[in-house]
Structure formats: structure tokens, C-alpha cells
């Protein structure tokens, strides 16, 4: 017989009570694991999304820069527009390597109820979207269309094929290129020449945003300052994406800190519950503790045994909590995505092995702390006290 098996058998004696205690720990650990996985998923998702955008600076119409960034990243109709001639001012600003004008619009296909996002752009966009891999070419002709991987699959179109633009009755195009999957929103976009988009959406000489790539990203602050000071600076919003990322991440971190407090409170309550349960078990098993002392157990043996029982309960709770979080990840992701004002298209909940180990370590630490009081009380019982309290042997 081993200490671990003895402790396990003791912990499993009152299955319902132990189960309820384990559930308390499991819920707290599930909350912690989900929180950490969300934090990780959001951070990685945001980073990847901004990297895929390829720009260092986003130039958008006046208004909320976060809303504008969200629309530029995920695709939607814009409430206001930039004048096309701002592009020249932006391009001429010192430190700007490439400025790619975009006109974006989203339309609903009444027949399916689905939204389709179109972007008008120039071939120079390829210099910004360096991570793109194309099958075919960026549209050179007015009727040419570049499709994201998802939308191409959904429309069942191939290179060179003519197709009707969904949501735009009477408009057609020819597939000039198909994007390799990017795992981002680009997979659902349809690109066309800028002038063609301005014609279709009746926005001549208008843009929704400009993607700006710098010659030296280390000079970001200087270039942003110059852009804001140019002739068009008063009529447009210059959004440095690194700052945007840090700001959004800061907001998420604040929320995480709040949720983290909730998780800590849940852990403390679970720990108190475990401690209380084991204290009750010690009281119930006073006679057995007396027997063990009589047959040679030292106070340290009793301390170790009760402490081990508590740690086992918390560790089982930790494993169950992690499993619960993994099983519920999809549901939590959907719930959070509906409520977040700005969410990356990638998975929000990213449960990594490292985070799992952190959560199991927390469960272990919780058990270690929660077990101290009952273990100390049990070890303080003298054999004779234990036997008398248990009604004799």
C-alpha cells in the first residue's frame, strides 16, 4: 500500500461530498483556464490580424479610430469617406514607402441573406500585403476580380471563370486570381480595381481608408506626426496600428484584471470549501486517526496523509476544470464574440499546454494551502485524544 492510494481511498469515502468539493475547484480552475486561454487567444489573434493587414499606419475618415480599424480589418460598409486626392498627400509624406488606397463596401445578398464585402484597390496593395500568396494575378482589367479562399470556395468559381457578383444584381466579373487561405478576414473579401469599385458603389474620387507602409517602422511616431500635420491632416484620422494594438490590448488587460479578480475570488471560495470539507472529514475520522497513531503513525505522517488527500482533491478538480474549459471553449468563444466590440477573426480561446500546466499548478497550490489547516489539526491530535473523541476503540 502507498500513501497516495491510502489518501485516495480516504478521499473517495464520501463520494457525493468529495464530488461537490471537486466541482467547486473545477469551476474555479475552468474559469481561470478560460480566462488565460482567452487572453492568449486575443493577443495572438490581434497580432496576426495586424500583421496580415501589412500596414504600419491606417488612414481613415474622422471618427472613432477603433471602429474604423475594426471595419478595415473585418469588412463592413463605412459611414464616411476620404477624398481620393488625400492619397497624394499621404504618399508624399517623408518616411512613407507605400500608400495603398482602398474603397470598401459590404452588401447583402437578398436571396441568401448573407453579407459580401468588396474592396476596390490598386495593384500596389500587393506591396503592403506581403504575406499573400496568389493563384493568378491581382486584377489588371476592370472586370478582373481577386477572391479570398473562402469566398471562392463558396461561389464554386475557378480562375478565368465569369461569375455574378453576389449582392450586386447585374454586375459580373472574371476571376483573375484566388488568394491562398490567410486564416483572416481576407479569405472572405472580393477585390477589384479601385476605379471599378468607385463606379459600382457610386463613390467617384472617394476612398474608405489608406494602408500605409513605412520605410522604417522605427520612425513611426515622426511619420504619424508628419501625416497629421500635412494639408489633409485635419480631415483624416491617422491611426498607428502598433499604438492601436497596445491600446486595445490594454483595454483587454483591464477587463482581464477584473475577470482575474473574479477567478481569484472563486479560487479562494473553492479553497475554503475544500479546507472545510477536509476539516469535517478529519472530525469524522478522529477515531481512525487514533488507530493510525496507535499502530505507529507519527504526527508528521498524519499531517502528510491529510495534506495529500486535500492536494488530490484539488488536483482532480484542476484536471476536471481544465477538461470543462476545453469542452466549453466553443460556447464561451461564441458568447464572448457576440459581446466584444473588437474581436479578431481567429479563435479567441487558445488553450495551450503551458496554460494548462499553470492551471494545474494553481490547483496544486490551492490544495497545498487548503490542506494546511486540517492537516495541522489532525496532526495535533494525540492518540489518546483521538481515541476518546472517537468514542473509544
Amino acid at each position, binding site marked *: 500500500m502507498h500513501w497516495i492510494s491510502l489518501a485516495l481511498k480516504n478521499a473517495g*469515502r464520501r463520494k457525493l461530498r468529495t464530488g461537490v468539493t471537486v466541482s467547486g475547484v473545477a469551476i474555479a480552475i475552468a474559469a481561470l483556464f478560460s480566462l488565460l486561454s482567452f487572453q492568449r487567444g486575443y493577443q495572438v489573434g490581434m497580432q496576426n490580424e495586424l500583421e496580415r493587414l501589412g500596414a504600419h499606419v491606417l488612414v481613415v475618415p474622422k471618427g472613432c479610430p477603433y471602429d474604423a480599424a475594426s471595419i478595415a480589418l473585418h469588412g463592413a460598409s463605412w459611414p464616411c469617406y476620404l477624398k481620393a486626392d488625400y492619397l497624394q498627400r499621404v504618399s508624399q509624406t517623408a518616411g512613407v514607402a507605400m500608400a495603398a488606397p482602398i474603397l470598401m463596401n459590404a452588401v447583402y445578398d437578398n436571396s441568401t441573406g448573407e453579407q459580401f464585402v468588396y474592396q476596390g484597390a490598386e495593384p500596389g496593395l500587393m506591396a503592403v500585403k506581403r504575406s499573400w500568396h496568389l493563384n493568378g494575378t491581382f486584377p489588371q482589367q476592370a472586370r478582373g476580380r481577386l477572391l479570398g479562399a473562402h469566398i471562392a470556395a463558396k461561389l464554386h468559381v475557378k480562375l478565368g471563370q465569369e461569375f455574378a457578383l453576389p449582392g450586386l444584381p447585374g454586375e459580373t466579373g472574371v476571376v483573375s486570381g484566388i488568394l491562398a487561405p490567410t486564416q483572416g478576414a481576407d479569405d472572405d473579401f472580393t477585390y477589384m480595381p479601385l476605379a471599378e469599385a468607385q463606379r459600382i458603389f457610386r463613390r467617384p474620387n472617394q476612398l474608405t481608408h489608406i494602408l500605409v507602409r513605412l520605410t522604417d517602422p522605427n520612425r513611426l511616431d515622426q511619420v504619424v506626426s508628419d501625416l497629421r500635420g500635412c494639408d489633409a491632416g485635419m480631415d483624416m484620422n491617422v491611426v498607428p496600428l502598433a499604438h492601436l494594438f497596445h491600446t486595445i490590448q490594454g483595454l483587454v488587460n483591464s477587463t482581464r484584471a477584473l475577470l482575474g479578480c473574479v477567478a481569484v475570488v472563486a479560487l479562494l471560495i473553492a479553497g475554503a470549501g475544500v479546507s472545510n470539507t477536509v476539516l469535517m472529514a478529519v472530525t469524522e475520522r478522529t477515531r*481512525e486517526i487514533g488507530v493510525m497513531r496507535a*499502530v505507529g503513525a*507519527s*504526527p508528521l505522517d498524519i499531517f502528510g496523509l491529510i495534506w495529500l488527500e486535500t492536494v488530490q482533491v484539488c488536483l482532480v478538480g484542476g484536471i476536471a476544470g481544465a477538461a470543462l474549459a476545453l469542452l466549453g471553449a466553443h460556447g464561451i468563444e461564441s458568447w464572448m464574440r457576440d459581446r466584444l466590440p473588437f474581436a479578431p477573426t481567429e479563435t479567441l480561446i487558445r488553450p495551450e499546454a503551458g496554460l494548462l500546466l499553470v492551471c494545474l499548478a494553481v490547483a496544486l497550490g490551492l490544495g497545498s494551502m487548503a490542506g494546511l489547516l486540517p492537516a495541522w489539526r489532525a496532526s495535533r491530535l494525540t492518540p*489518546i485524544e483521538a481515541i476518546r473523541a472517537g468514542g473509544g476503540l
Partner: protein
Amino acid sequence: MNSVMAEIVTPLPAVRPLRPALIRADGLTKTYQRGNERVHALDNVTFNVSAGEFVAIVGPSGAGKTTLLHLLGCMDTPTSGLLALSGTSTSGMRDGALTRLRREQVGFVFQHFGLLPTLSVAENVTLPTLFSRRRAAEQAEVLLDRVGLSHRRNHRPHELSGGEMQRVAIARALINSPSLLLADEPTGNLDSASGEAILALFQELNRDGLTVLVVTHNPWLAAAAPRQLTLRDGRLVQDTAGPIP
């Protein structure tokens, strides 16, 4: 009483042994505070027990028998007086040293058996070796065989009869090869047949050299012991081995 019973309970002649003293109790006194009252559980009890003796401690309820057993088993410490086990004085010993002495020298058998319900018979027998940090699976098998319970090794205590449970408790008490076996009312919860079997087992162990001290109210069990110590009101009032010192 049938012939087997008669054979078992026939007392052997009380002879003062010439073997070395395993237990030396000199002026053992134990007092408790119960509210405002001071209770003298044991009062100046003096006796010796040699290795290999079989002694019954008898007396009315409240005479101090169990208290004496607890002191002899190093489960409690006397208020005053001296106690030595195998020549080692327990006076002033700390809890750790008392635990070691108890683990190495003493085996306990309780009236209510004291088996852990979550453990199997074999696990209950080997429980003390967990605390003495040694493996004794083979010895446990030998002991279970000796008490006639090898076939019950994987059963739980609640699946056993009272007599079987007490035999498991005896096997557990012997697993660390103690020099002294202390039994507190070992037949108190058993029918007469089971009680006879337990007594026979004690006698067999004693014949093999084990020192056995039994606290009992059972007259035939007491009569079967070659030596009886009688306690009354915490005092040793009779020792069949000789005059009270």
C-alpha cells in the same frame, strides 16, 4: 462449558518468571482534570512484567485498566512515576520518540477492532508498515495464514464477522514484530466461539514467546491468563504472581 473451552481456560501455574523485565512500572500515577474535579485514574501502580508472560488486567469498570494499557502502549504519559519498556525509560520522552517506541515494540488490539473500512484485509494488516517505511507483503501473507484469513485478504472489514475482524486486527498488531501485545477487551464484541478462537490465538502467540497483556472483563479469558493484575479505583490491589510491592 464444553471440553475445548475447559482446555483453553485451564490456568497455568502462576510462576514468577526469571526472564528480563519487559515492562517496569514504578509508582505509575495518572490524574485528569474533569471540570473542577481531579480524577485519579491510576494511583501509584507498581509491577514488572517479564518477556514472554501472559497477563490479564482485570477489575471493575472505571478501575483504570484501559488507562494503564494506554500508558504501557506509550499512547499516554503518566502524571508521575516511571515506566520502562525493554529497559528504555519513557519518562520525558517526546511524542516522536514515544511513537517510534510504540511502532517498534507494541502491537495493539482493540475491542472495536479499529480496522479502516476503506482498506482491504491485507491493506489493514500492512497499514503499520506504511508508517515504519518498510515492505511486509510476504509477512502479511504469513500472518493472514496464521490467523486463518488468507482467503479473505481482499475483502473489506464490513464483509467479515466480528471474530474475523479481530483476527485481522491481531495480524495487524503483529506485522511490525512487536515484543509486547496489548489487547483492550479483545473479546468484548465477540460471541463465545469467536472469543475462544481469539484466546487460543493469544495463547499460541504467547507460547511462541510474545508477551501478551489483556485488559478484560471476561472471566474465562482472565482465568486463562497465568497471571492476573487486579485494579480497583486506580490502585493495583492484587497480583497473582506475588505480593504487591
